[in-house]
């Protein structure tokens, strides 16, 4: 594990959105959507970014894909030739070859496919846009991709409306795989699906990863799903990374109070587990007007004076276990016992 290549390294990533008011559209403040986030993804692994709405997980993933430009920080990506490029500052012209290697799977399979185009058009689009192969080759490639994701190639002349949610998500995956990417960013890929279909898509994603050596950055809020697919997990709260470590350790021995509360809030499908949970008071902090010190302190049951005044930094308290909490060393938090 130690010697694995870091396919992606994000260092001090910041993305602030301006708040504008009045006829002059003067900037009156900033939403600190992503505020100094640092993490890495190793080749062939799945790192999950988890957190609640507004924590900046989607903004982070969009910065990585350069769908939006980061305010500050580095996003170091290693393309197949072994070089290292900073996606955050790369000029637009040089982005295109890089985009082939980073693809995205979207949340909503109903709005992410154009209803007026056939499966063939949809899945072949990345090939056409990048001028790969002639029409024949593209047809063969689409057939191969559809088979890969468990759809019959005969379906390629049909339109998305003929398919169920799960099948549409398979189409989205086929499109993402068309250019043989190394990194796949999956933003809530199963949250719009029914439970029985969700399992099929998760299994497919795991199988494809093994077969094609893919690296996943998995953005999700459902911790049961995250536990199921990830090698490592990074927890975000109001634009900051609060904890990152491997999946087993995060779920068994969380070291950040927010992680503990988050784990305990997940409803377990077993009536014997009732009412053994921590219910957090209050609301998620406003990223436009975050509290002083640790952003979590107003809701934290372990908060002390230092938490109110000093912002904790992300520190490696054990090899591979990163936490940003003043009291990480002394607290004994409850995880999930298997």
């Amino acid at each position: 594990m130690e010697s694995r290549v870091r396919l992606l390294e994000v260092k001090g990533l910041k993305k602030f959105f301006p708040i504008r008011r009045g006829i002059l559209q003067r900037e009156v403040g900033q939403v600190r959507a992503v505020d100094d986030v640092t993490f890495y993804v190793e080749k062939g692994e799945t790192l999950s970014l988890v957190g609640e709405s507004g924590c900046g997980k989607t903004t982070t993933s969009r910065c990585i894909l350069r769908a939006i430009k980061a305010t500050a920080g580095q996003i170091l990506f290693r393309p197949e030739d072994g070089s290292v490029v900073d996606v955050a500052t790369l000029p637009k012209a040089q982005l295109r070859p890089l985009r082939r290697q980073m693809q995205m799977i979207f949340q909503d399979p109903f709005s992410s496919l154009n209803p007026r185009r056939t499966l063939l058009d949809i899945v072949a689009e990345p090939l056409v846009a990048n001028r790969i192969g002639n029409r024949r080759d593209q047809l063969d490639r689409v057939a191969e991709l559809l088979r890969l994701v468990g759809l019959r190639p005969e379906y390629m002349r049909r339109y998305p409306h003929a398919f169920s949610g799960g099948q549409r998500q398979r189409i989205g995956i086929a499109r993402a795989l068309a250019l043989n990417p190394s990194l796949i960013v999956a933003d809530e890929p199963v949250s719009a699906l029914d439970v029985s279909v969700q399992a099929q898509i998760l299994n497919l994603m795991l199988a494809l990863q093994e077969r094609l050596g893919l690296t996943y950055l998995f953005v999700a809020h459902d911790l049961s799903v995250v536990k199921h697919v990830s090698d490592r997990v990074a927890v975000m709260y109001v634009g900051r990374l609060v904890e990152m470590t491997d999946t087993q350790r995060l779920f068994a021995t969380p070291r950040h109070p927010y992680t503990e509360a988050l784990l305990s809030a997940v409803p377990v499908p077993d009536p014997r587990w009732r009412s053994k949970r921590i219910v957090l008071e209050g609301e998620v902090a406003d990223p436009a007007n975050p509290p002083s010190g640790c952003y979590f302190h107003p809701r934290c049951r372990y908060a002390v004076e230092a938490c109110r005044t000093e912002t904790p930094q992300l520190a490696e308290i054990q090899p591979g276990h990163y936490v940003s909490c003043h009291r990480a060393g002394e607290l004994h938090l409850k995880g999930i016992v298997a």
Partner: protein
Amino acid sequence: MATESNTEPAILSVRDLKTYFFPDEGTVRAVDGVSFDLYPKKTLGIVGESGCGKSVTARSILRIVERPGKIVSGQILLQRKSGNGGGGVADLVRLDPSSPEMRLIRGGEIGLVFQEPMTSFSPVHTIGNQIIETVQLHMRVGPKEARERAIEMLRLVGIPKPERRVDEYAFELSGGLRQRAMIAMALSCGPRILIADEPTTALDVTTQAQILDLMRQLQEQEGMTIILITHNLGVVAEMCDTVVVMYLGRVVEQGPVDAIFHAPKHPYTRALLRSIPSIHATTRTTLPTIAGSIPHPYNRPTGCPFHPRCPEVLRGVCDAGEPELQSFAAGHDVSCFLYGKP
């Protein structure tokens, strides 16, 4: 039917309810023979995946099924509130949806919480105004008292500074607060039954935990009976006393929560429970799945609606006739040919 050791009679009994939709393309049997009993101060969960008819069941009870939908047959027997000429049993199916009596029941005796609090509130009226309107419709009170009642309700559901929030619009509230306001509105006229249709689906887990906590606490305080409609089996395990599992408009299994989770009988219930990733399971294992996908309502399979996906299908039996819901143990009913002949 569920003959539990309940001393109190059921507050609401649904008997063989059929709600069909008649669009131009053909008939959709959204709810196709659903029966269950709701006991006072208990929480009944209705679970199932999309298209199983759980929301249409709720809408049928409140008689707010939209056209081209229609209740075709069945009974919805509500034990009426005693006093002011009430008492006795009313069959909601026989009432005119827009009759004064039905309007009194809707909101006054049965409250509803929708899934999406953003779209269920009017964006151009303050939440206070909307609650005040409900209160004035159902209770004989003046505007000032109604406003006080609204503030009191907002306080009851844990909204901070209710006297200020009452004059805010839905968009000014966060998702969790909005859902609390929705619950406040549903409870403002003191209904005995609360129907919550996916009340926490649009919320984050920590907010979800808060709302579930609130519902439990209100149930204790006000002695409320709850019908909780959800696809989330975790939420069901957490909240419910009895569970109704639906698939394509039919009840496939119903029983006490422990029986459903620890000794499920119907192959669909079993498969559903196996296919959800558990926070207690080991990571990166292949999940057992249910083959295929939910059929389109126009192509409903013949016989048992689950038979094309069922791992224990009996050829020649399951595809021929529809199984009836029959008692398996006290209060535990299954509709499957594995447990006895039709």
